[in-house]
């Protein structure tokens, strides 16, 4: 049996729903319009603090608005506002995408 099939079989046996499989990606990997909940900010103290003070922290829902050409900044919506985050920084924001 393939691994995926085995996993499925197991979860069916356990009675769990299949679509509880959640994906964790970083902000640059999200599609435009996709939302997710921030899991972790994979950076040092400075970056984490900066992002936190702007409202991006674990547990917050963010929606990706756009990305720019050639690794430009990512725009996202969170809480009541829009933010622009540099590419390098966006790569450090890990988000749980709900299927």
């Amino acid at each position, binding site marked *: 049996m393939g691994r995926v099939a085995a996993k499925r079989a197991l979860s069916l046996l356990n009675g769990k729903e299949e679509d509880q499989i959640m994906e964790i990606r970083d902000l640059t990997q999200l599609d435009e319009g996709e939302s997710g909940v921030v899991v972790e900010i994979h950076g040092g103290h400075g970056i984490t603090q900066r992002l936190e003070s702007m409202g991006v922290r674990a547990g917050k829902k963010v929606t990706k608005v*756009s990305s*720019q050409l050639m690794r430009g900044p990512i725009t996202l919506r969170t809480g009541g506002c829009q933010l622009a985050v540099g590419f390098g920084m966006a790569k450090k924001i890990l988000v749980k995408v709900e299927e």
Partner: protein
Amino acid sequence: MKNAKANRRDTSAKGPPLSERPSESPLRRILLMGNPNVGKSVIFSRLTGINVIASNYPGTTVEFTRGHMKLEDEVIDLVDVPGTYTLDPIQPAEEVAVQMLEQSIEEKDSVVINVVDATNLERNLNLTLQLLKKNVPLIVALNLWDEAQHTGISIDTERLEQILGVPVIPTVAVTGEGMKKLVESLPDARKGDYSFENGERWHEVGRIVEQVQVVKHRHHTVFDRLADLTIKPITAIPFAIVILLATFEAVRLIGEGLTSLLLDPVFKNLYLPFITGLVEVFQKTGLVRDLLLGTTNDPLGSFGVLSAGLYIPFIVVLPYLFAFYLVLSFLEDLGYLPRLAVLLDNVFHRLGLHGYSSIPVILGLGCKVPAMLATRILETRREKLIAVALILMSAPCMPQTAMIVSILSPHGVKYVVLVFGILLLVAVVTSLLLNRILPGETPELLCEIPPYRIPRLSILLRKVWLRLSSFIKEAVPLITFGIFLIGILDTMGAVVSVSRMLGAPLLFILGLPPETSLVVVSGFLRKDVAIALLFPFNLSAHQLVIACTFLVLYLPCISTFFVMTQGLGLRDSLKLAAILLLSGLLVGGILYRLL
């Protein structure tokens, strides 16, 4: 600061306001604190009557502003503290804010008005809680109240007041609603009684928000979708190009219109005859007269303090400056500039600059003077230097551009393209080099993109006036003084002899006839005129390309130079000027050998 009267006002304890207890010092200062873009500066200007810039793009309010207001016949200091998201100092603006706060806490004579963005309660309350922890008398002004209503957000201000233990006043600063109540509540400012663990702060914020805020779900409106179009590259880039072109046209029209229809005629037909007559009453000829009025009829032909010295800042520069500030402030208040910064950020990052340096550079395409002033928004010195180099080299200012086009297009459009292409190349190479050589790094972009807002005319005009008046107060005296200095040198014959000395080197390095040296020297005053002065020389197309490129690069015009020294200091400005001159000679020299 004025000495307080015997009637002390107790602003620190909870309890009846205006009590007679002489426990704490009287109220002497009010600090306005809050996130960037929440309307602090608008509240400030409403309280003080002193006009203040309230800008949208990040970094501009790092220079804080002071004013006074009257509160029941006491004069109180009002300080607009740089916008901060947190009191944990991460960026220079925040460090400044914290220092100012600490100082006030020590002196025990201040009240803080915490301006909170009602459309962003959660993020703003973070700072509020930090302020409460600092135990300083506080009032919360819940600004942008109208916008919150429009977006379906309703906040129970009484409940919030209960929870925090400080007065909470909803305000709409741009219209003035709530301002009266805000001022009336000042005596009620209290230290608040909300206690919490610092580590749990975000949790607490969430708890509070849950209790006081209700958001009606809003579907994406047409306007939201349109707004998104201005930032998604496919649609945003063409849109940006259209906006930029429209900006230039608008500025050109307004600037030229003002100059030719109003300012030039007034200066030449009214002022000049008047001042000439006046001076000649005392001195019909002689050194003093020449220093004051110059030696030619045309104000630009010589260096008279009262003629060229005033003509250049007020007739040459000011109209374009006014036009620029008008359009720039409009785009700012609208909210477009941060989006533009995002679009251009990665291009600029490779050059060692931030997205928001795109604004000064773009300004520089019209006139270098406002571009120099705009570099103030850049945080690090390193960025300022690279930005200034880029501004000065990448393209000529608009009057110059017009001249270059008119002198070169008869020979073929390709020569025009050649000149601009070379300039761009030089600028990029220089920035890349500077980026390597100068120590330090450019921080990554992280900024808020405010929602689009319809600019209000009165606030717009106040902004423009404030910027213009700071130019008039700061830059104009320098420019006029500079012209005076050159005038003195001129009377000593220095200008003519310098031109003669330059003749031979010019021929050797650039292949230009020695007579053009006078043009080169006078180009310092007004660069487009210098290019115009090339017409009678009947130079070949190649010579013109060399001459135009050289004249754009070799030195900034006098107004630009003096504004530069203001921002960067004399030493660095001279160094940059030297780099410019060298690059001009180098590029011109290379072109001469190549073409």
